[in-house]
C-alpha cells in the first residue's frame, strides 16, 4: 500500500509541472493586454508601454515563466493587477470557503448516493428501486443553476429555514458555517448524489450476483455484513472513480454556486478576475486548484489499493 502511494505520488510531480505550465501559458496565449486595462481609454502608447514594463510583460515568456514558477513554489503568486493585494493572501482567504463547500457537498452526495444506490441495487426491480432510480434520473437531469434558485426560493425565502446567501467561516461559528453552506452544498451535491447512486446501484447489482456473495449468504452472515461489507466494498471502485471525477466537476460548478449563493470562495473571485484580466490571480488560482485536483485524484487512485487488493500487488 505504501509502495503504491509512493509510486502514485511520484507521478504527481510531472503532472504538477504541466499544471503550472498550463496555468502560466494559457493566459499568455490569450490575447488581451492587462496594461491596456490599467491605463484606461485616454492612455498614450508610452503610458501603456510603461505599465507593460512595470508588469514585466516586456520580457520573453520563458523568463517570466521561470521567475513566476520560482516565486510560486515559495508561495508568492504576485499581486492582483489593480488592487495590488497579494494573490497568495486572497487564495488562502478564499480557499477554505471553496474547500468547505466542495467537501460538504461531496459528503452529502456520498451520504445520499451510496445508501440510495445500495438499497436500489439490493432491491433491484422493486418499487423502492424504481422510486430511487427515478429520483436519480431527475437528479442527474436537473442542472445546478436550476436546482439552486429553487432551493433558495423554498428553503431560504419562503420557509426561511436556512440563509439564502452568504457564508460564515467555520472559525467564526461552526453551526452558522454549516447552515450557511447547507443550501449551496445540497444544490451542488444533487447531480453528484444521483451519479453516485446510479454507479452504486449498478455496482451492487453486479456484485450481488458474484459467487462470493453467495458464499457469504451460505455462511449465514447477517444482511448488513453481506451488503454493507462484502457487496459494498467490491462495488465501490467504480463509485470511487465517479467521486474522483466529481471533484473536478465540483470545482467547476463551485464557480457558479459561489456566485449564486454569494460565497466568498475562489470561484466567485475567479469570474471577476477574468473580467478584469487579473492575470496574476488567475494564474495563482488555476495553479492551486489544479494542484488540489491532481492530489485528490492521486488519493483516489491510491484508495483503489484499499478497495481492490490486486491493485496493490500490481504496484
Amino acid at each position, binding site marked *: 500500500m505504501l509502495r503504491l502511494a509512493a509510486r502514485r505520488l511520484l507521478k504527481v510531480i510531472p503532472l504538477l509541472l504541466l499544471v503550472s505550465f498550463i496555468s502560466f501559458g494559457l493566459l499568455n496565449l490569450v490575447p488581451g493586454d492587462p496594461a491596456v486595462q490599467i491605463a484606461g481609454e485616454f492612455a498614450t502608447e508610452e503610458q501603456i508601454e510603461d505599465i507593460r514594463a512595470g508588469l514585466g510583460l516586456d520580457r520573453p515568456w520563458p523568463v517570466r515563466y521561470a521567475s513566476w514558477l520560482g516565486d510560486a513554489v515559495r508561495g508568492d503568486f504576485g499581486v492582483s493587477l489593480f488592487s495590488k493585494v497579494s494573490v497568495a493572501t486572497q487564495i488562502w482567504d478564499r480557499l477554505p470557503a471553496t474547500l468547505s463547500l466542495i467537501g460538504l457537498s461531496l459528503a452529502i452526495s456520498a451520504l445520499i448516493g451510496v445508501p440510495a444506490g445500495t438499497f436500489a441495487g439490493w432491491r433491484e426491480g422493486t418499487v423502492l428501486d424504481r422510486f430511487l432510480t427515478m429520483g436519480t434520473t431527475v437528479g442527474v437531469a436537473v442542472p445546478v443553476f436550476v436546482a439552486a434558485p429553487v432551493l433558495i426560493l423554498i428553503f431560504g425565502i419562503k420557509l426561511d429555514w436556512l440563509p439564502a446567501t452568504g457564508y460564515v467561516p467555520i472559525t467564526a461559528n461552526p453551526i452558522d458555517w454549516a447552515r450557511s453552506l447547507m443550501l449551496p452544498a445540497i444544490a451542488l451535491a444533487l447531480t453528484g448524489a444521483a451519479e453516485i447512486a446510479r454507479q452504486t446501484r449498478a455496482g451492487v447489482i453486479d456484485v450481488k450476483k458474484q459467487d*462470493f456473495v453467495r*458464499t457469504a449468504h*451460505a*455462511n449465514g452472515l447477517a444482511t448488513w455484513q453481506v451488503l454493507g461489507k462484502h457487496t459494498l*466494498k*467490491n462495488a465501490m471502485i467504480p463509485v470511487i472513480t465517479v467521486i474522483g471525477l466529481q471533484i473536478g466537476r465540483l470545482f467547476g460548478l463551485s464557480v457558479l454556486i459561489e456566485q449564486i449563493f454569494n460565497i466568498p470562495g475562489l470561484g466567485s473571485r475567479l469570474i471577476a478576475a477574468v473580467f478584469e484580466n487579473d492575470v496574476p490571480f488567475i494564474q495563482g488560482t488555476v495553479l492551486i486548484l489544479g494542484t488540489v485536483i491532481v492530489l485528490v485524484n492521486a488519493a483516489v487512485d491510491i484508495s483503489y489499493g484499499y478497495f481492490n487488493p490486486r491493485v496493490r*500487488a500490481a504496484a
Partner: protein
Amino acid sequence: MSSHASSAVDPVLQIEDLAVEFITEHGWLTVVDGVSFEVGRGETVGLIGESGCGKSVTAMAVLGLIEQRSGRVSRGCIRLDGRDLLALDSREMREIRGRKVAMVFQEPMTSIDPAFTVGNQMVEVLRRHLPMSRSQARQRSVELLDRVGITDPHRRIDSFPHELSGGMRQRVLIAMALSCEPDLLIADEPTTALDVTVQAQVLDLLAGLQAEMGMAVLLVTHDLGVVSETCERVIVMYAGEIVETASTDELFARPLHPYTAAMLASLPGLHPDEPLDPIPGIVPPRHALPPGCWFEPRCEHAIELCGSGHPTLVAVGGRSARCLRADDLRLPGVGS
C-alpha cells in the same frame, strides 16, 4: 411418497415432496418436483445428475437461498435435525446457515471475497455464529487452515484470495464451511474446477474431515467417479425429479433406471479402452415436458407404454426407481 426407499437411520436432513419454482419467460416453472430423501448423521450421500437436473437447486433450497435467485419453494418440507427450515424467517435461517448446515461451492476462484483477507472472512463467520473474541477466532482460523492442509497458516491467514492457488482457495472455503462444525455439509461440485491431482486431495480431505467431525455430507455432483469413491448412497435426479436411489454399490453393480445406466456407460476412466458413450439427446425443457416418462425420448429401452403415463418412483427391495421397466430390464453396471 415413497420416501422409505431413500430414508436413513437417525436422519439429519429430511426432505419431503420438495418442489421449487423459478420465474422465467414462460411464467413460473417447476424445476424441482416431488423430491424426497434423507441424509443420516455421519452419512455421505451423493446427489447426481446432468447439469440442469435440479440437484444444485435442491441443495440451495436446503440452504434457504432460493429467493436469492428469484425462485420459491412451492411445496414440501425440509427438516434439519427435525426442525422445519421452511417455517423459519430469514433471520433465523441466517443463523442456521454456516452454523448447522454449510456449503462448499464449485467455483473456488470466485467464491471468496477478493477484497478481504482470508483471515478476515474466516473470523467473520466464526464470530457470527460462536461467542468468540477476535483473537480466539483468529487462533481458531489458523487451526482450521492447518487442518485443511494449508502450509504456513500463520502467514496465509493474512493473504488475499488472489495470492492463493485454486486448490488452496477450495481448502479455505472448506475450512470456512467447517469452521462452526455444522451437522450437514453440502458440497456442490467441490472438485469440478480443480485439476485431477488436486481433486483427489480435496476429496480425501473431505472424507477425512467427515470421519473426524462426524457430520453428514450431501455431495452434489455430476461425476459418478467422485461418487463411487466417497458416497454410501446415491440419489439420481433427472429433469427435476429423483429417478433412482440406491446404495452406491448396488447402483454401480446394477442400475435400475436406463438413465443411470446411460450415465454409467458414459463414465470415463472405468472403461478406458472404450470410446466415451455420451447420452444422446438433451434434457427436455421444463415448459415442454413429454407426456410420459421424461427420459423416454432419449431412452434406448423405451416401449410404447413409456410415452403415455408418467411413472412414479417405485420401491424395489430397499432401493427405488422411476421406470416402468425397472423389474424387467437387466441393465449393465460397472465394476463388480
